[in-house]
């Protein structure tokens, strides 16, 4: 097993599959009266969050607590970071307190990679800048596998602000490893020109959502921040929704079995309409549930829970 989880590209197919299989076992815990395993009793997991996050932080916290680990939540606001402490000094402090795992979210791309050089414990990237969010990709892969029964050979469209999306990058890397084919869709302003070559050869790019929809098993809508409009990535929210939003008529062009995903939080009416978000194809709520199981599996495997 690997020591850190920094990138969706760190995982080979066997390791990724082991995580997904372990997550499936962890999911059975959620159905019990007492949702707790003793696997990480006495181990310390630090949630080190330099960026606001609700669902990811809570998901990691729930995952660590269900494994009986001690959880310390560190948010940059109101901490010594506001007094000017560097990432390295904060890391060394946590190290001195005996953190077995550090779950880090940071606005700077690559911060978790730096952190991994400074601490002895395991580092889990919970989202760094516009770079990666590997546990999101794992929970997305888990959700696809449980809905559609497989990952190899699936055709997945990732739609929206790919340029700023760590979810998109980690998904391209992981899904390609697991044998799925990814097509990135969005306005050309929001898709880096070199992305397919830089991440995974074989990734397609399209600027035309309507032509892609009839041929996919999964369509993953990314959150589009309205602030992007002020930076002229697209002319207006209305035009964005018209060309790249998933509404009822577009959803009906999907194959019968196809599912609709969204990492949240959604902009209802922008990239996705309520009709789609609340439809039977939507896996949005399942994704949140699966996130806890997948993060339990990641912490369990990284901290050597399977060897003890």
């Amino acid at each position, binding site marked *: 097993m690997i020591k850190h989880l920094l990138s969706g590209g760190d995982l080979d197919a066997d390791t990724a599959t082991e995580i997904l299989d372990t997550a499936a076992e962890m999911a059975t815990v959620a159905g019990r009266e007492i949702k707790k395993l003793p696997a990480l009793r006495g181990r310390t997991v630090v949630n080190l969050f330099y960026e606001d996050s609700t669902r990811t932080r809570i998901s990691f916290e729930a995952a660590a607590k269900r494994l009986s680990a001690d959880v310390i939540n560190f948010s940059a606001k109101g901490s010594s970071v506001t007094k000017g402490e560097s990432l390295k000094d904060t890391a060394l402090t946590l190290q001195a307190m005996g953190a077995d795992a550090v779950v880090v979210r940071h606005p700077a791309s690559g911060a978790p990679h730096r952190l991994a050089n400074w601490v002895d414990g395991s580092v889990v990237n919970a989202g760094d800048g516009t770079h990666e969010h590997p546990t999101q990709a794992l929970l997305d892969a888990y959700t696809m596998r449980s809905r559609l029964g497989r990952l190899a050979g699936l055709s997945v469209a990732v739609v929206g602000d790919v340029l700023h999306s760590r979810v998109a990058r980690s998904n391209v890397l992981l899904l390609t490893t697991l044998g799925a084919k990814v097509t990135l869709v969005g306005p*050309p*302003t929001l898709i880096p020109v070199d992305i397919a070559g830089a991440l995974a050869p074989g990734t397609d790019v399209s600027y035309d959502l309507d032509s892609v929809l009839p041929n996919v098993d999964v369509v993953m809508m990314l959150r589009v921040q309205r602030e992007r409009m002020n930076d002229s990535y697209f002319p207006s929210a209305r*035009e964005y929704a*018209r060309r790249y939003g998933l509404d009822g008529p577009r959803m009906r062009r999907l194959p019968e079995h196809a599912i609709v995903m969204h990492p949240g939080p959604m902009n209802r009416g922008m990239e996705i309409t309520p009709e789609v978000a609340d439809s039977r194809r939507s896996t949005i709520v399942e994704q949140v549930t699966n996130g806890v199981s997948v993060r339990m599996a990641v912490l369990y495997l990284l901290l050597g829970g399977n060897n003890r």
Partner: protein
Amino acid sequence: MTAYLITSVSVVGAAPTDLLIRDGVVAEVGPGLSAPDATVVDGAGLVALPGLVDLHTHLREPGREDAETVESGSRAAALGGYTAVCAMANTSPVADTAGVVEQVWRLGREAGLVDVQPIGAVTVGLAGERLAELGAMADSAARVRIFSDDGHCVADPKLMRRALEYVKAFDGIIAQHAEEPRLTEAPRCTRVRSPPGSA
């Protein structure tokens, strides 16, 4: 069925020859053609050209119908040998929405003299601040593919970059008036001459 036989005409400047046109299509080219049903036009001393395309036309409609209309501009274009004109976006209101470009396109169809292809504005109101709904204009009945702020330069380099990238989705092009306004705003030394006889 209409036919025209143009005799002794120089096709794009070549040696004089005859040109037979049936139903708007060049049917035959060569010396000594004959077609009893055709209207004969003496082309001696004249040059035959393919229909010209004007990429930068001001049809002024909507807004300045006193100066020009789509119909009058189409008529002038046809008389001058043009079969297609691209209508600039600096109308009033500006051609920065699907509604305006469709209106100009429909007026062109109604005039029926040349192909009138509206050009869409790159930015809202030609103001160079926010992208206009380029995709909506591209998807409209007018199927706009050329976008320009006419005599206004899209001077913000980032906005220009976004525009160039954005139109890739529908094979559009941006026609730029390449004049950086901050370089040309300084007043030149001018002198207004007084009329003769002024004291």
